């Protein structure tokens, strides 16, 4: 093919490529793509690769581009509207390829190899030198060569089914897998009720079926993406486990010691800990409240006192007959402050504590079993008796 034709098709190919990149509308860029592929096929033909050229047009220009246009139409993409240019991106996009080309040119120049002209004489010489094992005597290739034309398709066929037989089968399988893939991907879109297991597609289908009316995507779609969203936000918090820790001056009520197996995900905030407390102790509370309410004398509750299932009888605010708890041996003003904080003001309350309440307070005051060791209960009952 005389060089003029070569240049025409080459330039056509390049402009097609540039159209793909430059044009805003995806459809027009698809058209540019097709033009480029056609020019490319022409170049292949120029290189005596007729089979590949035709294949190019058939597969690329024909099948793939059509698929592209079909998908563009399916998703009815408008022109890229509002996106203003990211100057850096564009600049980078231009500079990097230019640099690439500049680097590659010296390589190409250093190649400077001309094509031999495959005229009749060269071809007959080639046919003579064809080894018997590859091309048997009676194959169609030999007479064509002798006539001076290249039986491109035959040669490729011969090569495919002798040397590249196994890869061919593999490619076949590949295509099969691709088709099955497309089918499963697309089938889910408007398929029936997917199995209830928790894999992503199933949920997505349900939500999409429901979510026809919801315009914006962020709120409701597939919990897994949602999940990934908030874990993304969440994981920044995970790196620093912040368990609320009281300041220095009240070391005695240091935070409840974390159980070893829960140390990994113990990074939940204050409210979570409260819920954890109530959760963990609800089964205990049923027995406690039963006992404390039926305790000895005062069945009816004194004014603004409540029975807390964990802490036994407590006052919401300071009653007038509050006792001086420091009289109990082993209770100092610091502890009294904490006890009042929990609503314990009188000896009667302490005397009525059940073992669970005692272990509860033991944990809260984190005094490691001090209440039983200095047995506050008996002291409280005596002090209450002779009050």
């Amino acid at each position, binding site marked *: 093919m*005389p*060089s003029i034709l070569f240049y025409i098709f*080459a330039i056509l190919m390049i402009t097609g490529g540039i159209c*793909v*990149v430059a044009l805003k509308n995806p459809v027009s860029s*698809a058209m540019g*793509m097709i033009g*480029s592929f056609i020019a*490319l096929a022409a*170049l292949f033909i120029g*290189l*005596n*690769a007729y*089979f*590949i050229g035709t*294949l*190019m047009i058939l*597969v*690329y220009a024909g099948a*793939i581009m059509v*698929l*592209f246009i079909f998908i*563009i139409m399916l*998703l009815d993409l408008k022109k*890229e509207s509002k*996106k203003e240019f990211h100057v850096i*991106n564009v600049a980078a*996009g*231009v500079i990097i*390829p230019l640099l*690439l*080309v500049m680097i590659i040119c010296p390589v*190409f120049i250093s190649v400077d*190899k*001309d*094509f031999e*002209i495959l005229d009749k004489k*060269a*071809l007959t010489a*080639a046919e003579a030198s*064809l*080894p018997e094992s590859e091309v048997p005597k009676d194959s169609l290739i030999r007479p064509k060569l002798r006539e001076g034309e290249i039986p491109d398709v035959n040669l*490729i066929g011969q*090569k495919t089914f002798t*040397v590249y037989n196994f890869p061919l089968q593999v*490619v076949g399988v*590949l*295509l099969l*897998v*691709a*088709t099955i*893939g497309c089918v499963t991907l*697309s089938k*889910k*879109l408007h398929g029936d009720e997917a199995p209830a297991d928790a894999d992503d597609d199933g949920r*997505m289908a349900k939500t*999409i079926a429901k979510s026809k009316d919801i315009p914006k*995507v962020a709120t409701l*779609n597939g919990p897994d993406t949602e999940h990934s969203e908030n874990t*993304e936000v969440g994981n920044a918090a995970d790196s620093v486990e912040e368990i609320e820790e009281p300041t220095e001056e009240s070391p005695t009520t240091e935070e409840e010691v974390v159980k070893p197996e829960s140390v990994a995900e113990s990074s939940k905030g204050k409210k979570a800990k409260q819920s954890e407390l109530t959760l963990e102790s609800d089964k205990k509370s049923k027995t406690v409240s039963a006992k404390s309410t039926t305790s000895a004398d005062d069945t009816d509750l004194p004014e603004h006192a409540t029975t807390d299932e964990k802490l036994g009888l407590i006052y919401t605010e300071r009653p007038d007959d509050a006792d001086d708890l420091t009289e109990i041996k082993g209770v100092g003003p610091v502890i009294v402050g904490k006890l009042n904080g929990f609503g314990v003001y009188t000896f009667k309350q302490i005397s009525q504590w059940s073992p669970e309440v005692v272990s509860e307070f033991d944990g809260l005051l984190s005094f490691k079993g001090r209440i039983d060791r200095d047995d506050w209960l008996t002291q409280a009952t005596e002090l209450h008796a002779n009050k």
Partner: protein
Amino acid sequence: MPTASLTEYLFFSGLLFAIGLSGVIIRRNIIVIFMCLELMLAAASLTLVAFSRANLVNGLPDYDGQMLVFFIITVAAAEVAVGLAIIVALYRARKTISTDDLTSLKN
């Protein structure tokens, strides 16, 4: 085309490859990026064919190169099929295919 030597072919395929790469970097729309990807594949197959024509094996063009192009084309076809299916699914899930909004991979 004996007059056009191998370097022109390689030069133009390099140019086409560069254009494909710039397209991938510049454009925001996934489908166009996908097209530019195909462009880069085509550029690669051009060099292969050019070389297969340039290196003669006992007088004939070296058909191994062309066999490779053959496989490239088939794989590209499969790839496009699956790729587009994913893009459609993505569009249905996110209602957008602009790369700016799809950054869930961000750390």
